[in-house]
């Protein structure tokens, strides 16, 4: 009944000054658009960056076997630690808590197809490299599989840039090319990805063959890089310590010797990136929020004017027995209505703008590709609604409080 009464009183209150209402609602709509777009760009940037940072692989650590930095068990510092293919099998057997893989790299791969010759980087890898390092094949191909490794097949998986370099517009999958003089079959081409972290150049410009085949052709079995992906990302530190212990035991070095194994823990990096991005989003939110606040001040202003104009009306209602809350209720409702309608218009405009921006092709434009597309997520919507609601309440509350202080005896005195 009380709320019904307030709604009824609201519907019966003085007719709104249309021009002023339109201006106020526009200000709120403009503020909402600013807030929503800024937050959406922040969200788009965040998503793009998170995709980019995990482009190299999600929650992995990259380990370079180096040279010891400390004397250990009578052995001098400066010894090189040479990890070989069999050590990866050892680590896999001893570390059930993580996925372990590795690769051997060479920068001297000469690839010939027809009259085209390309020199590039090549890796010998296991089949699980696909998941760990996000080397997914595009439609119509596959990554190297365990049988390729087992049977030392001469198959090759190409980065998308490299494939384009070699084959141009021709279809690479199923073609045979020469790698350092030996024929290999192209089994797949990498699906395009955004990769922000690399340790030997982006994957798009490289090729991969089975590690067993690599060993046969190049006569090398020393691992360039060990890859670790714990099943629980939070326990990365433990997994790395365990790995150092196993290798330290085998090659006699102190597991705490940081120079024996150079480590890049991307879980740690992602945490930092997340915080930076959160900071950016908060900053954008504050900028948008301040713009919206100006709209809110507009609403407060119009409501003050309304209270002033209706002072007599308020006094009459009080004389007729209206409680203070029955005076303030409809006013708050009115202010909230401006805010709400403005916010709704802002939302519609924002959705339109974001949809239109989504239609602009960013393909090939690196800056745009990196900036990403604004994303109107649930979080963005809720945050905006929260800020808008808060501003609406504040903008309506203070003028209404003034209305409640109207002294009917004063206002009803003679004209």
């Amino acid at each position, binding site marked *: *009944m009380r709320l019904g*009464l307030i709604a*009824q*009183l609201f519907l*019966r*209150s*003085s*007719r709104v000054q249309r021009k002023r209402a339109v201006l106020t609602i526009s200000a709120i709509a403009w503020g909402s658009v600013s807030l929503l777009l800024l937050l959406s760009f922040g969200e788009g940037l965040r998503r793009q960056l998170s995709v980019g940072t995990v482009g190299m692989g999600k929650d992995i650590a990259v380990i370079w076997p180096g040279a010891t930095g400390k004397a250990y068990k009578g052995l001098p510092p400066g010894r090189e630690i040479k990890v070989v293919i069999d050590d990866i099998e050892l680590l896999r057997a001893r570390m059930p808590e993580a996925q372990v893989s590795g690769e051997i790299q060479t920068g001297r791969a000469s690839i010939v197809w027809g009259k085209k010759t390309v020199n590039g980087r090549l890796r010998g890898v296991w089949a699980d490299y696909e998941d760990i390092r996000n080397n997914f094949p595009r439609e119509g191909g596959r990554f190297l599989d365990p049988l390729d490794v087992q049977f030392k097949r001469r198959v090759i998986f190409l980065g998308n840039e490299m494939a384009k370099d070699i084959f141009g517009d021709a279809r690479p999958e199923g073609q045979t090319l020469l790698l350092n003089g030996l024929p290999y079959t192209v089994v797949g081409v990498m699906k395009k990805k955004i990769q922000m972290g690399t340790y030997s150049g982006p994957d798009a410009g490289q090729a991969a063959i089975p590690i067993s085949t690599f060993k046969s052709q190049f006569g090398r079995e020393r691992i360039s890089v060990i890859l670790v992906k714990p099943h629980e990302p939070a326990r990365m530190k433990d997994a790395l310590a365990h790995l150092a212990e196993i290798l330290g035991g085998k090659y006699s070095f102190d597991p705490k010797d940081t120079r024996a194994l150079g480590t890049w823990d991307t879980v740690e990096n992602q945490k930092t990136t997340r915080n930076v991005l959160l900071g950016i989003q908060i900053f954008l939110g504050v900028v948008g929020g301040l713009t919206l606040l100006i709209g809110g001040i507009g609403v407060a202003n119009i409501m003050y004017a309304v209270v002033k104009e209706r002072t*007599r*009306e308020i*006094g*009459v*209602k*009080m*004389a*007729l*027995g*209206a*409680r*203070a809350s*029955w005076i303030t209720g409809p006013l708050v409702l009115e202010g909230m209505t401006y805010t709400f309608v403005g916010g709704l218009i802002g939302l519609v405009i924002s959705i339109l703008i974001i949809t239109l921006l989504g239609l602009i092709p960013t393909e090939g434009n690196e800056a745009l590709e990196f900036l990403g597309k604004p994303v109107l997520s649930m979080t963005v919507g809720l945050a905006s609604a929260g800020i808008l609601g808060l501003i609406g309440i504040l903008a309506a509350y203070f003028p209404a409080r003034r209305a409640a202080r109207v*002294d*009917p*005896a004063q206002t*009803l*005195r*003679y*004209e």
Partner: protein
Amino acid sequence: MEATVARRVTYAPQSAQDVIRMEQIRKVYDTGKVKVEALRGIDLLIGKGEFVAIVGPSGSGKSTLMNLVGCLDTPTSGSYLLGGTSVGTLDRNQLAEVRNKRVGFVFQSFNLLPQITAFENIEMPLLFGQVGKRQRQERVKELLNRVGLADRGEHRPTELSGGQMQRVAIARALSMDPDVLLADEPTGNLDTSSGGDIMGLFEELWSQGRTVLVITHDPALAKRAGRVVEVRDGIIVSDTAA
């Protein structure tokens, strides 16, 4: 002055019938630097069914008295019983309820809400009194008939004449069936003939047992009341039965 004393004596034993019972009411306006004593000890008893005119020059304190009687303001000191309820101890919401249920206001400038119809204006106190919709509509129709505006319910105040507006205001004042009808210069903004009509309406209401309190400058108006109370410099200087 003798009449005042006589009345007090006459009315004191019948206090159960008093609609308004004010004792030693004082009202001081504190404007910061200066304290203005608007009322300096008012004793006023008004019985049920009386028609009282309060007269006095401007600045005499009669408006302040009206505000206090109508519970729009509270006295600085003294006791005030309206229909047996002590008003001095009530909070703002309770005062609002007292104004709604016990007092019907009629103003010089009508004070109708311009954006809603006559019907809705009369309905307003019923809304505040949280009366159900059907009862509200019946009551408003009855009141429109009562003041002779049965066909004007859907008109807005701007479409009515001064006399009609004041009749709507009186209907509004009567809607919650108050203990006292409080009119502040009700004919002040009307021409002589409309003013006369309005006074006729007040007399009619009086004859039906309503308690009516009118504040006025107009001696002709005061003459038609059953009792005239004259206020000067914040005190009652005479109180005479007509």
